[in-house]
């Protein structure tokens, strides 16, 4: 009985694999595109969205490309081998989708000058290594505005993974935006020291709720915090992919990573021979960052405000890190009328006013 069930599941999967295989079989001499993932494609977060991007490449370019991926590649000694393996098996373009692959990517790229490499969220480039990342903080700005308007307790909870600039930038963007519409807001942060541990993320969310938070934000990858928020009847904002299914009442909106346009564009560039190394940091404007549908419970004027900010970011009239910005001690670190440059944002290592606690060092 048990075996029968397993077999059923396996054969269901098998059918899928076969379909994928036959769909690829006819191509004459397709460009092989490789993807290296840090998590399982079933994480419903970071890796899931990258894999959606890969699938989109296959859909858009059909038999001109053949994609392959390796999932759950540890960011240590194994990364170099996997990337080398991809490069030496005829892959012409390789996306390495986590920060920890930076040095391995650069190392392998030296050995394979003809292969093009694209490394996500890093800062080391070469003639055949480009970098790309998304300006998630633009999304954080808009959700920060919504959270600032929706909170009654004036406490926003933030489930955070690791104190890296990317995460700190998100926390600050939310704090600045929320306080711009509601100066009483404070942001409480709990670090779970993991990108991915649904149980701990849920427990952290509950701890924040117990301490008064009534809007839950997260920079971890599982939908558990949204679910916890729904369970306790507070608002939540999803991360990386649409998490409405996990908390339909609570889910205000989610910041979605959409890598598909970039992946398609870069793959096309390799096919055309126009690929050049560079650094792309895309946001709302390039479609790399998106927001999922707004919850119907958000008042119309708040939606209008959020949409205005989103459009403002696209046309350049709104900048999430525009002065005056004060640090936690109240000292002005960015004067009125100035906007923060990319370099400061990329290395951000301080909290702004309104965030509670200290960055763990």
């Amino acid at each position, binding site marked *: 009985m048990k075996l029968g069930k397993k*077999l059923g599941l*396996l054969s269901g999967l*098998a059918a899928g*694999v076969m379909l994928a295989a036959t769909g690829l079989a006819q191509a004459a001499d397709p460009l092989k595109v490789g993807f290296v993932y840090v998590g399982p494609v079933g994480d419903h977060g970071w890796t899931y969205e990258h894999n959606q991007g890969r699938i989109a490449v296959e859909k858009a370019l059909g038999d001109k490309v053949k994609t*392959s991926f390796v999932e759950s590649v540890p960011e240590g000694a194994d990364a170099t*081998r996997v990337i080398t393996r991809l490069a*030496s*098996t005829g892959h012409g373009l390789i996306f390495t989708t986590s920060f920890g692959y930076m040095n391995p990517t650069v190392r392998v790229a030296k050995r394979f000058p003809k292969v093009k490499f694209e490394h996500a969220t890093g800062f080391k480039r070469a003639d055949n290594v480009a970098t790309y990342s998304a300006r998630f903080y633009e999304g954080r700005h808009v959700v920060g505005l919504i959270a600032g308007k929706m909170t009654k307790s004036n406490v926003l909870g933030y489930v955070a993974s*690791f104190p890296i600039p990317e995460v700190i930038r998100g926390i600050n963007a939310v704090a600045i935006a929320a306080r711009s519409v509601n100066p009483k807001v404070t942001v409480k942060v709990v670090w779970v020291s993991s990108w991915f541990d649904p149980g701990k993320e849920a427990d952290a969310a509950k701890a924040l709720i117990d301490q008064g938070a009534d809007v839950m934000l997260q920079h971890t990858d599982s939908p558990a915090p949204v679910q916890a928020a729904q369970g306790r009847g507070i608002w939540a904002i999803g991360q990386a992919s649409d998490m409405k299914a996990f908390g339909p009442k609570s889910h205000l909106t989610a910041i979605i990573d959409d890598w598909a346009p970039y992946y398609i564009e870069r793959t096309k560039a390799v096919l055309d021979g126009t690929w050049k190394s560079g650094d792309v940091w895309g946001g709302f404007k390039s479609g790399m960052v998106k927001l999922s549908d707004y919850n119907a419970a958000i008042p119309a004027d708040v939606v209008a405000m959020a949409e205005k900010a989103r459009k403002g970011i696209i046309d350049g009239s709104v900048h999430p890190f525009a002065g005056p910005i004060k640090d936690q001690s109240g000292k002005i670190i960015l004067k009125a009328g100035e906007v923060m440059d990319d370099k400061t944002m990329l290395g951000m290592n301080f909290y702004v006013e309104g965030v509670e606690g200290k960055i763990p060092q």
Partner: protein
Amino acid sequence: MLVRLENRGEISKTMVYASPFIAVVLTLIAGVFLFALLGVNPVEAILSFFITPISTLDGFAELFVKGTPLVLIAVGLSFGFQANVWNIGAEGQLTVGALAGGGLALLFFESESLFLLPAMAAAGILGGMAWAAIPAFLKTRYNTNEILTSLMLVYVALLLLSYLIHGPWKDPEGQNFPESRLFPDAGILPVMIETTRMHVGWLFALAAVATGWILIARHVIGFQIRVTGMAPMAASFAGFKEKRIIWITLLMSGGAAGLAGMVEVSGPIQQIVPNISPGYGFTAIIVAFLGRLHPVGVLFAGLLMALTYLGGENAQIEMNLPNAVTGVFQGMLLFFLLAADVLIKYRVKFGGPKTAGAAEGAG
């Protein structure tokens, strides 16, 4: 009951060598079924698992890169396991060894000294030993179970690494990302085959195997360890100090794991990163038993285990098989290998008269 096991009364020499092959054949048969179920061409899948990964010089070298930490740790662990000292925390000892050895490279990041590498290796060994000394002390002093303390210390070591790499040891020029500086050239293990990543760490592993072999076969310590494991009472009559054995085996396995950690950061990784080991400390436990707790057996088992990882990656690239299949396939291979060892001491009988015995009745 039609099938039963009968004690051979002695160890079958043939089966000592034949059983791994029987297991591999059984795994291949089961693998054919698994892959057929998944709708994948079984022959292609098995080739892509076992043959193509090592068909190039690069791939062949990678086998040793991946096998080095597994063999190093497993050789160390096999001593303790023979003496019934259960060090489950090699992963933690590896991490602390990597921190100690790698920390030295970070401290002297401008060094060009030839002494840096030996010093790092020594620091790695000492670091691993120090971490293993905690369970040894608690076991000998307070009789605290070493399985639990060594396992808990794994989590503590990983959190210590996380703390250091997000704080004090962060690369000052690294834009606040959680990675250390790159080690200086003097702190990187030399490569043995040009263009590949095969570094001299593999020689450490071979040296560990040789030392282990001599110790267990020739040295009095090896004898004491084996007697303590098989007959603790006899050991204490013979005047072997149990506490001494506990200390020696834990320090040896901790030192070996610490060296493995240093080899990983100084060989293939070349800096301190948040994830130094993908669970080598735990995988090495399986390797130790697959190698039947014998250094030479461990050598082959470590390479076989390494091959399944390379094969899994390769099958993903070539066949689009999900990573999960690797885990299932690996598990199956291990099950068969572990089960086949029964043939060394027992022979399978079909039908025939039953010997009286509750165990058979239960089966």
